Each structure stands twice: as C-alpha cells, then as structure tokens.
C-alpha cells in the first residue's frame, strides 16, 4: 500500500464529511475527495504530522473552486432542491443543511473535527474573527431551528 493509499484510508471519511458539509451534495463531495487524494498522490512532500491539515486545506480549496464556478440561470422558479434535501427528515440534519455552506463548514470543523477557531481560520484562509462570528450565528440558527 502506498503512502497516499494509507492516508486515504486514515482520513477518507474526514475529508468526505468536510466536503459534504461544504457542498451538501454526495456526488460533489465524492468528486472532491477524489480530486484531493489524487493531488496527494502528486504532492512531493508534506510535512510529517501535517498530512490531515494539508488534506483539509486542499479540500476547502477544492470546494471553493467548485462553488466559485459560474452559475447562470433564470431566477423564477429557483433551482430545484438538492438530492440531499429530499432525504432530510432528521431534525438535526435538517437544521445543519439549512445553514449556508460557509456556516456548515465551520460547524463541522469546530464541533466534529475539534479544530480551534484559529486553526479553522488558517484552514479556510479567513480571519479568526470571521470564524467566531460564523460559529456564533450558526449556533444561534441551529438553536432556533431545533427549538421549533
């Protein structure tokens, strides 16, 4: 087994969940994972111990690139809901999926991955203040949604 394969088996679900939290689309999350690990295969050197950070950062970049693509469409009616929305029946799932992508990403990194706001800021290339703001707003929204 190559190093890339070994890292793939260790971190595949983490990268997948992060991509899913960003895109809310299984297909896109799967494609992003493939892109990320293929990049890993081509990557010459990664600082030992920093492999996961590299993967998460590459994943964030890949998600951003995907979402940055142009969308041209008429606005009425709005585009159809994603496939995931159709299967949202669990309240927590519904609440998380109702968050905007940039909120979902910080919620995932903070609550599931256990990163600090400083680490998230570094991963997402945004300020620590913005991470804290997004976390605060996401918490408020989730609390409100789950209480309804």
């Amino acid at each position, binding site marked *: 087994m*190559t190093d*890339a*394969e070994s890292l*793939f088996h260790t971190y*595949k*679900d983490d990268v*997948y*969940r992060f991509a*899913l*939290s960003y895109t809310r689309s*299984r297909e896109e999350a*799967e494609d992003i*994972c*493939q892109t990320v*690990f*293929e990049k890993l*295969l081509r990557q010459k050197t990664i600082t030992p111990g920093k492999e996961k950070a590299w993967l998460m950062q590459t994943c964030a970049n890949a*998600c*951003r690139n995907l*979402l*940055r*693509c*142009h*969308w*041209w*469409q*008429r*606005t*009425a009616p*709005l*585009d159809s809901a*994603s496939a995931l929305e159709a299967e949202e029946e*669990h309240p*927590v*799932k519904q609440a*998380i999926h109702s*968050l*905007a*992508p*940039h909120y979902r*990403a910080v*919620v*995932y990194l903070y*609550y*599931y991955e256990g990163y600090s706001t400083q680490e998230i800021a570094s991963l997402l*290339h*945004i*300020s620590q203040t*913005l991470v804290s703001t997004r976390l605060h707003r996401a*918490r408020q929204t*989730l*609390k409100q949604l*789950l209480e309804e």
Partner: protein
Amino acid sequence: MERNIREYFENETMPEDTVRRIEDSLRKPRPSTAPLLRMAAVFAVVLLAVGLFLSTDLMEVCADVFDIPIHTQKPEATEPLGQMETEIYVSYGGIVGGEGEKIDAYISLAPNTGIPAEVIDGRLYFTANAEHIDITDLCSEETAYVYALQDNTGVQHYFIIGGTPEDWGYQIFLKVPGMDICGGWICGGSAGATTRASDWKYRQWAHDGQAKVGHPWPLED
C-alpha cells in the same frame, strides 16, 4: 446540541463504491475526463441554443445587446457609478427560460469578463464596465452594492455585489424591453466565493440587492 451535531457527522461516511473508485485511481491514476465532458456539454448546449435562438425574435434584440462595444447612455444607479462614457467590456451568460423551463435563448459567456468584482490587497473592487471602484465599505453581508446602467439598446443592466472581501458574491440582472418571457428579466451570476447560486436565498445582501433593483422574484424557497 453539540452531541447531536457530532452524531450527525459521525453517520456520514464515504460510500463503499466511492472508496473503491478512489482506491483504483490512486493505484492507477488516469487523466481526468472532466474537461472533455464539459466541452461536450457546452457544445451540446450551444448547438441547442443556437437553433432555439435563431427561431426567436430575441435574436435581433440580443444581437444588439451583445454587439460589443456598446456605447452607454446615462446610467440609473443606486450608488455612484464613475465615468460611463465608455465602452462596455463585460458580456453576460444567461439562460432565458420560459414556462416549463424550456430554454429559449442562450447567450455565451466571454472569458475573463464575466466576474464583475475582485479582491485586491484585501479590498473588494467592482471591475466591470472598465471600472475600478473600491466597494469594500459600500457593501456587507447584509447590504449590496448595486451598479446599474442602461445601454443604447434600452437594456437595463444591474450588477449586485455583496458580502465581504473574504466571502463575496454577485448577481447580474438584465431587464430587456419588449421581452415578454420572465417579465423581461434575465438573471445570471454566482452567489459568492464560497457558495453557489442555489444558496442565494441565504445571503441577505442578495435580498437587499434584489429589492434595490426591483427584481420581481424574491429569493425564497
């Protein structure tokens, strides 16, 4: 709540078939077919669109609209606009749909001119129409900067830009006189650097911008 969030994410794991697919690609990397597929899809859309486009009265209107350079007339805007005695360098992409989602026309997107803003040294600039306006303090997560102009064919162009330099987005609306589908509105754009068009409804600035330009369809579910 925190435990619920962790449980939710814990239940999401990569599907087995995807694991196998990626394992295969790591053992035997193949050149990506995505660019070819994208080219084929674009080609198919263009073929379809050209046929439909030629069969509509829109051709004449849109030919005028995209006969670049277009010399502008006095703009109507909600914010300071800078010098408008210039040529329009932007062009738009857009799919105009009638009832039932049938595509009636397709307008191609010219490279390098589709995104009306960019971040330079941490500041957000409006860059379309040969402008270079620092709009960092003119918009926010809640409010939109709107740049409007009317070209010499009578088409009204609205650029809506909102957010922050870290997370900004835009929408472009065209109001075409005499076009009876969609109330004459053509819309296009990207919701932001970190989100997509389907998430416009989450962005307060997008709602604000739409209200400013008087677009009739609110971004609701």
